């Protein structure tokens, strides 16, 4: 049981002439939350599909809990659950029937399955809707049921492919709370997201995937640090942001930045120093890094 939860080396995949993954290396430790961050079309879903044995890689190796995805797909399937982008729920059945079905398919007996369904219904706040057909559910409820279905058998590794895409703020935060609880329980979570805030909030480590390669990897703090020093903000009397300037973190650099801001002559101005946001880090790390530089020069 010493193998890392996920280990990937030189993973490649093309569909026809389109290269989707172009040599990805990645290691996810057991019990951690790992976010794979990238824009649309970066190859995130293909990556998850290979790790969950749905799609065969063209080259490279990937193991989940020590099981090779190509040589031992059944071993992988026993260690994972996948929550894909579209909620994989049975709309004709009720929430309770969905959960019971999944429990039966996960090796629970009839009575155990009913009990497990009840636990998850209560745990995911689906009590009121338990006997309603999923067809009538809102997007947030569907997603919650979807996640509950993935947790019926409590696998050691969970893949969440863009778990909060299309959800409102409240549902998103509810899902985040669930993901944090799972992580606290020792489950390894690999999630993909387009939202930097989400990766920042949830993940122990983040990898940025762009055009099929990992362009950066590290903790959220490390990634932010890679963009450079701090940012000095100038705000007017109404606390509206007037100007931001990157600095190198030295006293001289800070003084120079303040001089520039001072020259703007904003009445009642205040300044603040902050770390660059993950958005800025993301832009800097992907192809559009030039935009941030333009921003700094202006």
């Amino acid at each position, binding site marked *: 049981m010493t193998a890392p939860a996920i280990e990937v080396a030189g993973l490649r995949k093309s569909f026809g002439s389109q290269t989707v993954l172009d040599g990805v290396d990645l290691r996810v430790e057991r019990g951690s939350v790992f976010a794979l961050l990238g824009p649309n079309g970066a190859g995130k879903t293909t990556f998850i*599909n290979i790790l*969950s*044995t*749905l*799609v065969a890689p063209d080259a490279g190796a990937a193991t989940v*809990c020590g099981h090779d995805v190509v040589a031992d797909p*059944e071993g992988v*399937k*026993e*260690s*994972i*659950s*996948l929550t*894909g*982008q*579209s*909620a*994989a*729920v*049975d*709309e*004709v*059945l009720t929430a309770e*029937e969905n959960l019971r*079905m999944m429990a*039966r*398919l*996960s*090796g*629970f007996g009839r009575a155990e399955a009913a009990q*497990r369904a009840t*636990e*998850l219904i*209560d*745990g*995911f*706040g689906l009590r009121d809707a338990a006997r309603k*057909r999923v067809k009538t559910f809102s997007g947030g409820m569907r997603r*919650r049921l979807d996640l509950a*279905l*993935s*947790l019926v*058998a*409590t*696998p*050691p590794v969970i893949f969440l492919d863009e778990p909060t895409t299309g959800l409102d703020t409240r549902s998103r*935060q*509810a899902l985040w*709370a*669930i993901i944090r*609880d*799972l992580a606290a*329980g020792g*489950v390894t979570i690999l999630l993909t997201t387009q939202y930097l805030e989400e990766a920042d909030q949830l993940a122990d480590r983040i990898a940025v995937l762009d055009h099929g390669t990992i362009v950066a990897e590290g903790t959220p703090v490390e990634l932010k640090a890679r963009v450079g020093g701090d940012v000095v903000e100038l705000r007017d009397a109404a606390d509206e942001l007037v100007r931001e300037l990157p600095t190198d973190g030295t006293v001289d650099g800070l003084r120079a930045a303040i001089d520039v801001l001072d020259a703007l002559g904003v009445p009642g101005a205040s300044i603040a120093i902050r770390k660059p946001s993950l958005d800025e880090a993301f832009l800097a790390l992907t192809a559009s890094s030039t935009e941030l530089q333009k921003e700094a020069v202006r």
Partner: protein
Amino acid sequence: MTALTAPALPGNTAGSRRVGRATATGVFIGRSVRHSLRNVEALTMAIVLPVMLMLLFTFVFGGALDKEGGYVDYVVPGIILLCAGFGASSTAVDVAEDMTNGIVDRFRTMPLRAGGLVTGHVVASLLRNLLATGVVIGVALAVGFRPTANVLEWLGALGMVALFILAITWLYSAIGIAAANPTAASGYGFALLFVPYLSSAFVPTDTMPSWLQWIAQNQPITPIIETIRAFLFGRDPGAELWWALGWCALIIAGAYVWAVWLFGRKAGRR
């Protein structure tokens, strides 16, 4: 937010998760039967259509085709197959819906035989269409159908009907997997519904032009119809039985292999 915290996850960890093929298939059959029972429109059609067709063929066409009123005895096997074909065609849509919804990938990433999903639909279709067959026979008896079969011959006729339902349902399942979406599946399925008309189901083939006779006599529906007809009236189906069994076996085997191949190929793509 407190209501949303994940439950303490009791110890059902990896290792003991694998379920047997029989259990998984049983669960999938239960799921598909539930789907059938809840699709009220389809279930209503499965019962109303046999009644309407039976009445249509007996009272509207029957008088023209046989003044003595004996047409009802001739046409019953044809209507059974027409209804079963219609009832089975919804399997293509059911399977296509599962294939385009994320649920199939969930099953595929579980340690079980995900193809049981399709088997579930096939078994549900068999049950649904045997029910429709019962309705056809019931209405037929009410409007003057007088078969002379003994118990064994009845079983032979019903067995032939069941085999036909299985064959056409497997074919529709494969079509459902092949189709890009449920609407397309429904469209492809519709074409198959005309095949019974080009057989001895409704009129003897010798009333057709000779080129059509050749098609009608050499397509699978005709020996199946003739076998059922023979059993219902206590005759020996002879070679027709072997042709019927051969055709059904061939269709089931071909559709099954096609379905399995497509099912594997379409993993992870929606």
